């Protein structure tokens, strides 16, 4: 895909950084299920932890297209690093920036944007996955503050974050209009983090549960107004989809690059593997799907940057890119043969990592529902 030079230059700089600084550690992070603290320090120096906010909040304020390219290039070598950066930017900083008041923004965003603290977003609950309207966690206004009870699960960055945005029901009678968002800080009394999940992929990324037991927070930690939580996270997720799509796109590209190199270098039956049409066609299909996914992601990013409606487009981009990611990773393993199934090569990690993209931030099924609803409008 042809992009303006400024974007290609940006990609080149992130790619070089990612290949030199991130990729060498990717396998170890995966094997040890170790959070990429060192990577976070490095990406913070590049401003990649404050991509979605302007310099006045210590961010880099780059456009969504560059943001997508950054997540793509990080994920191309390490999905765990990609999702950590994506969740921090799109899910923690974005809602505070979009819906917070000046005081909240000034208080919470700069440390996040500078990477002094990491952020996390708590929406999913044991009984409220795709049906996020089924949130059970409650927040009851008592005197000068809210008392929160409940729990959240599968929360990215849970045990490493210090700033959290979470949702809770403030008015049971109002359904989705009775959900509100709150900002929490690590260490608040009654706020505990559960055991780290043992996952199939993205093992370097931190995932855990959040528990709230008579957690008392001041009124000023309400994000926006009461009852706006559902609307807020729908908007947050629209943007988040671009970053998860970009992550899938990056993994897909990584799988293609590795498979292409392997096919050129491997000799099978006295000739390079790449000379077999069966292999050529797999590579052609992977490249074509990836090209299409890239167009969808960048187009959705472009629409967001222009302030245009992009609900349908970001759902399509996320759906298509994540399915492409899985397809590309599977094909890459196939091209590698038994080597692909071995942990000596990264393509099996790519498949485990990318699977999450079809589930997180709205499953593929939810994306199809969103798209269908938009078609009916």
């Amino acid at each position, binding site marked *: *895909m*042809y*992009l*303006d030079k400024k974007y290609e230059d940006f990609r080149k700089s992130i790619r070089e950084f990612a290949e030199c600084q991130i990729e060498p550690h990717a396998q170890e992070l995966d094997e040890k299920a170790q959070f990429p603290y060192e990577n976070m320090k490095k990406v913070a120096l590049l401003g990649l932890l404050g991509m979605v906010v302007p310099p006045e909040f210590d961010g880099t304020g780059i456009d969504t297209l560059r943001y997508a390219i950054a997540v793509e290039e990080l994920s191309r070598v390490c999905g765990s690093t990609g999702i950590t950066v994506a969740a921090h930017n799109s899910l923690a900083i974005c809602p505070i920036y979009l819906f917070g008041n000046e005081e909240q923004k000034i208080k919470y965003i700069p440390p996040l944007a500078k990477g002094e603290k990491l952020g996390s977003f708590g929406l999913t609950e044991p009984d409220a996955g795709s049906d996020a309207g089924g949130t059970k966690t409650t927040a009851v206004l008592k005197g000068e503050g809210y008392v929160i009870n409940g729990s959240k699960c599968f929360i990215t960055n849970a045990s490493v974050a210090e700033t959290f945005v979470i949702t809770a029901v403030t008015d049971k009678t109002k359904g989705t209009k009775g959900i509100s968002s709150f900002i929490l800080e690590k260490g608040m009394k009654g706020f505990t983090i559960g055991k780290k999940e043992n996952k199939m992929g993205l093992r370097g990324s931190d995932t855990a549960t959040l528990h709230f037991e008579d957690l008392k927070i001041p009124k000023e930690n309400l994000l926006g107004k009461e009852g706006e939580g559902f609307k807020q996270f729908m908007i947050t997720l629209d943007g988040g989809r671009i970053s998860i799509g970009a992550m899938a796109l990056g993994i897909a590209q990584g799988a293609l690059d590795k498979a*292409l190199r392997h096919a*050129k270098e491997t000799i099978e039956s006295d000739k390079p593997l*790449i000379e077999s*049409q069966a292999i*050529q*066609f797999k*590579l*052609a*299909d992977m*490249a*074509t*799907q990836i*090209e*299409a*996914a890239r*167009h*969808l992601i960048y*187009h959705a990013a*472009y*629409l967001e940057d222009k302030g245009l409606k992009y609900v*349908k*487009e970001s759902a*399509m981009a996320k*759906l*298509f890119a994540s399915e492409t990611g899985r397809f590309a990773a599977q094909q890459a393993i196939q091209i590698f043969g038994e080597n692909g199934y071995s942990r000596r090569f990264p393509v099996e990690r790519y498949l485990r990592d990318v699977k999450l993209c079809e589930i997180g931030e709205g499953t593929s*099924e939810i*994306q*199809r*529902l969103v*798209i*269908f609803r938009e*078609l*009916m409008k």
Partner: protein
Amino acid sequence: MDFELTEDQKMIKEAAREFASEKLAPKAQEFDEKEEIPKELYKELAELGYLGMLMPEEYGGSNLDFISYILVMEEFASACAALQISISVHNSLVCDAIYKFGTDEQKKKYLPKLTRGEIIGAYSLTEPQSGTDAGSLKTSAVLKGNQYLLNGTKTFVTNGGIADLFVLFVSTSPEAKSKGISCILVEKGSKGFNIGAKEKKMGLRGSDTREISFEDCLVPRENLIGEENKGFRIAMELLDSGRIGVGAQSVGIAQSALDEALKYSKERVQFGQPICNFQAIQFKLASMATQIEASRLLVHHAAWLKQNNIRSSREASMAKLFASETANYVVNEAVQIHGGYGYMKEYAVERYFRDARVTEIYEGTSEAQRMVISRDLLK
């Protein structure tokens, strides 16, 4: 890369959509059944400038940019793919071949007539034994004094029966294979030039497809387009834009199939409710729309590259491959959503299903596209 259309491009698209829905869509089924598109329609198209879309005004053309041309193709294909392919060949293969590679005399002689619709163009590369392996074509042209002597057979020639002027690829140095191919213009009515019977096709039945043959047919030397033995490059370059055109055709057919399926799913009641209430149908529609969106972006991007003279073989192949496979997937789902009715000719999806099939075959099969793409990946 700019994702947004200019005001001019939007206007051209809108005008094409209007024309297509008023003049083409209502007739598409009739063209399909009669296997014919009336001559008068070409006159009307010429008056509106649709037969010289890419040509400059000095030759009577409408001087559209390539993106605009692709937008028109998409709109026309969504109404009637048979008519669209016919004028696509005329515009992007015939007019463009003469304009880009022809001599001044050839341009003056043929382009104004082509853009005014006084003559219709056809393009012929494929032979009975030479399809994807285009370099192996056998139709021979031997120079005898100031004339070429043509012998051989060409097949699947779009516009074969309605064209007056043929852009033909012939072998001038058989030993040199693809480096011995030349491009030459042949007029209908030349002695020894026979036009065969109309092919009976699965789809695009309104478009006239024939075999043509040459038996000691003499063609003046000045009809050669470009240099002798340099024709293969011309064929390949024209195919790049042809592929983007087929991509646009695929997007057009797919979009119409989706629109029809969506409409039908709201009207059709089963189990006491419209079938669009069922998730099985909803998910089909969502997947169809997603694939179409991706196809359209690929096609527009390839067109944008072409327009900006950026090398685009890989992107054109990707756009064509992806869009044509999408079209076939989408028409199949559209028929499925229509159930038994989708199998009947009263519903347009039956025609879309047949029309879409060839997009995976002509202007390079899907397999040929994958060859182009994988070769490019290796660079």
